[in-house]
């Protein structure tokens, strides 16, 4: 039998359902791959028993002639930001090290209900804050891809869902969950040659996901094909009364409705995304994308999203502001790290616990957020940023008068070396420049592989759609996927 770890979500599901192989065989193959890939550091916690238990159930259900779920026998990776009952949920932080929740996040529960099993909890930037997966307390994640120029440097898998992107690219799992606040699904997908979609804000319940910036956080799948993403997203999405911002809408049959035929569709090309400093090879990939979408029947139109350049600064005010408040609960009182000397008081406990429990990037954002919400600065920063956010949303609303979907690069560069931007947080923040606008506007957006650059590193293209039109985004993504013929795989070095 061929290597089961090469199979995607649909292939595994269909194979298990059709009896070509057992779910246990699949789980064992991936468990083995995970165990052998410690050099990538993609997983914080491996949970082989969880994957096996779900697989045994799928096999038993099949043997008993029961209906199997849409993810029956599919073992997946779970970003360690989702609460999983009885399994450490760390947010890649020291302050939550050892924290085992008594509850299961809505999204992970829905995945288990659909028949999926969990291979483990995936590494990420600490509290999902970062774009390179270097801020994890549990160590950086290495991109399975390496440049073909012989440098052999370890590269970033992107962030914050860097464990997810690395694991999917390295065939440690057929799919993984991610979360996207300013690009944390799309950017790592682009840097690892994988596919990831951030749905419309509110599609996936945030209940049980460790919060970074509540008004932006959105869960989504990462996989190796558009169709697999659609299947995963169908299982993850849906109204949840426990999340007040959850959308009260039925989940469409995205995978069944997938079509790469874009006849009658208009694709907008935003001129403001043609920024100085963008890699020429990225621009070339963008042109390829335009040609492919035309080939798929779409009409391509130039559009303007005039407030694009203000999106990134606004994002780096709004997201830290919310984070500074969301992370106040990690105070050493009820769970997680408590660092206190004998005889010390409450303020000492807060100070020591939080000084030791949070990493530098998290502290930086808490400080920025605290500053921009402070009396005397609030209007100049937070209020202003919220106005920009409205303008960015309006940009897109105006654009929808002219097009159905927007095509843009996902990132300004391919994967860079780990450590390269460690001392320059602002340079790192620029990695999100193309992904942040859709986040601020709450729109569905995905990244699909466009090809390899001259160094043999993957490049991604981004599709941004109207609110609730995941189908339009997935269809345009499929049209690119069908033409990009991205079949390259990282050579195994781990």
């Amino acid at each position: 039998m061929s290597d089961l770890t090469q199979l995607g979500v649909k292939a595994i599901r269909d194979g298990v359902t059709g009896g070509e192989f057992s779910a246990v065989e699949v789980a064992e193959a991936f468990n083995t791959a995970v165990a052998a890939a410690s050099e990538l550091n993609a997983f914080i916690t491996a949970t082989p028993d969880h994957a096996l238990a779900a697989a045994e159930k799928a096999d038993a259900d099949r043997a008993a002639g029961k209906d199997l779920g849409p993810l029956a026998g599919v073992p997946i990776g779970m970003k360690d930001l989702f609460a999983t009952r009885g399994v450490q949920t760390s947010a890649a932080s020291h302050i939550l090290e050892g924290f085992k929740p008594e509850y299961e996040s809505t999204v992970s529960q829905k995945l288990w209900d659909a028949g999926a099993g969990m291979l483990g909890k995936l590494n990420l930037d600490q509290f999902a804050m970062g774009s390179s997966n270097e801020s994890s307390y549990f160590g950086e994640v290495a991109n399975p891809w390496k440049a073909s120029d012989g440098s052999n440097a370890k590269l970033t898998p992107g962030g914050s869902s860097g464990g997810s992107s690395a694991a999917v690219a390295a065939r440690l799992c057929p799919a993984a969950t991610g979360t996207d606040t300013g690009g944390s699904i799309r950017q790592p997908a682009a840097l690892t040659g994988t596919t990831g979609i951030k749905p419309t804000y509110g599609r996936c319940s945030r209940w049980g996901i460790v919060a970074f910036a509540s008004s932006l956080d959105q869960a989504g799948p990462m996989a190796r094909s558009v169709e697999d993403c659609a299947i995963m997203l169908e299982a993850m999405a849906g109204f949840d009364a426990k999340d007040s911002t959850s959308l009260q809408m039925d989940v469409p049959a995205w995978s069944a409705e997938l079509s790469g035929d874009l006849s009658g569709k208009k694709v907008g090309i935003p001129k403001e995304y043609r920024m100085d400093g963008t890699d020429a090879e990225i621009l070339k990939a963008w042109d390829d994308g335009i040609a492919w979408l035309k080939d798929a029947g779409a009409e391509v139109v130039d559009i303007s999203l005039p407030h694009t350049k203000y999106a990134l600064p606004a994002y780096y005010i709004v997201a830290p502001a919310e984070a500074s408040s969301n992370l106040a609960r990690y105070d050493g009182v009820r769970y997680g790290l408590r660092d206190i000397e004998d005889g010390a008081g409450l303020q000492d406990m807060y100070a020591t616990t939080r000084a030791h429990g949070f990493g530098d990037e998290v502290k930086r954002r808490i400080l920025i957020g605290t500053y921009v919400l402070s009396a005397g600065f609030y209007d100049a920063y937070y209020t202003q940023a919220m106005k920009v956010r409205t303008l960015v949303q309006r940009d897109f609303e105006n654009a929808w008068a002219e097009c159905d979907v927007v095509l843009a690069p996902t990132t300004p560069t391919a994967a860079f070396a780990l450590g390269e931007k460690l001392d320059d947080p602002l340079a790192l923040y620029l990695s999100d420049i193309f992904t942040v606008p859709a986040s601020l506007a709450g729109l569905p957006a995905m990244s699909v592989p466009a090809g390899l650059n001259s160094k043999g590193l993957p490049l991604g293209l981004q599709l941004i759609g109207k609110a609730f039109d995941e189908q339009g985004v997935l269809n345009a993504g499929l049209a690119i996927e069908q033409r990009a013929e991205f079949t390259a795989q990282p050579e195994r070095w781990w």
Partner: protein
Amino acid sequence: MSNYRIQGATGEWEIVVGLEVHAQVTSKAKLFSSASTEFGAEPNAQVSLIDAAMPGMLPVPNVECIRQAVRTGMAIEAEINKWSRFDRKNYFYADLPQGYQISQLYHPLVGEGALTIEADEKAGIPEDKVIGIERIHVEQDAGKLMHDQHPTMSYVDLNRTGVALMEIVSRPHMTSPAEAGAYIRKLRSILRYVGSCDGNMEEGSMRADVNVSVRKVGDTELGTRTETKNVNSVRFVMQAIEHEAQRQVDVLEDGGTIVQETRLFDPGTGTTRSMRSKEDAHDYRYFPDPDLLPLELDDAFLEECRASLPELPDAKRARYTGDLGLSEYNARELTAEVETFARFETLLAATAAGIGKPEKDVATQVANWSLSVAPGVIKALGEEGDITHATAERQAAILDMQAKGEISGGQAKEIFEIVLKTGREPGEIADSEGLKQVSDTGAIEEAIDTIIANNEDKVAEYRGGKDKLFGFFVGQTMKAMQGKANPAVVNQILKDKLG
């Protein structure tokens, strides 16, 4: 305008008071979680994952709490904001698991309203006065720290964490401790009528932050105010104002200045002391809570809230004096507390039905019974009586007999006493205990004839113009009848016979 003044060496001072009352919303569940709100549970027995601020937990508004706040707003005739929003008030404390309180700073649920405090000459409130209410917003309560459970550590009880509060913010319209006291009592009464807060100050269901400033009589500028936090009884609020105003006058007259600060009230000494000054004040970094959508209320919801409002204190009082013809005093006493008017209205309905007269014809009798006669008997009896025996039906039966002249006022009390002790039925008591008055004119006439015959001298004096002697004849008659004669009948017959 109240005439409350503080005499200083440099002249007369007047005071300005505003109150922020925190009222716990009557609701089974908390504002954003389904945990129970019942008072008196074991520590941390009523804490949901949301209350404990576990990672990834999200607040979901409890519609019942919103409904109660809206109904309260309607009861003070306030503007209800169909669009409001929750904000986070950020600060660290061990009783605040989220590290922020969800409140409403920028867009409160309820806008400008008012209530009226009644004239009370004795308290120095010469006429009815309208006190403005700036806003009502809903917010989460914090937990409780316990410092007496362990020699070196403090314990945290999160049962109260997340319980819904209404913060009711008055305008600085009060100018005496008495007005502030009347305001809180009136507000409490309205909350209890509406059913949105039990008003139980001992259990902390209502507490007030008291803002006080002073100024020279005639000045129009407001003085610098201080805020005394968490005062939990009407008496303490009045004491705190009195003390704080006097302290401010003393400071100012000594050439000092008032510092805008937060103060604490010490119930033991009746004084206030500084807690923290404005310089050390928290920067709460309020911002809209991104976990919650704006609260949007539709017309149907508002209509339901309005339709569910009971008759409110002012309207009820007006009806009692108008339709029922009760005295101002009776009306005020009967409408002050929910339990009082509820008992009165039940008894009134039962009595009117029993006697077969309109309520207004028996209202004064029932009011007097409810306010003075019955409480007097109950009090005199003390522990010997069982209040549960005093059903409305039994009391109505007593009033019925009294109205029909079958029993006297004294007999009514005696019967009620036996009811309280035994739970027996009034009619049966009257029969078997001989507690009935004689309205049989024959027996009374016979007694009166004997008395007239035996007191010819007095009869002559009376007829000669000594009217006061009428009481003598009544007394003699009642004595002869062993107190059981119907006084009205006695009077009538005496008048007829004495001419």
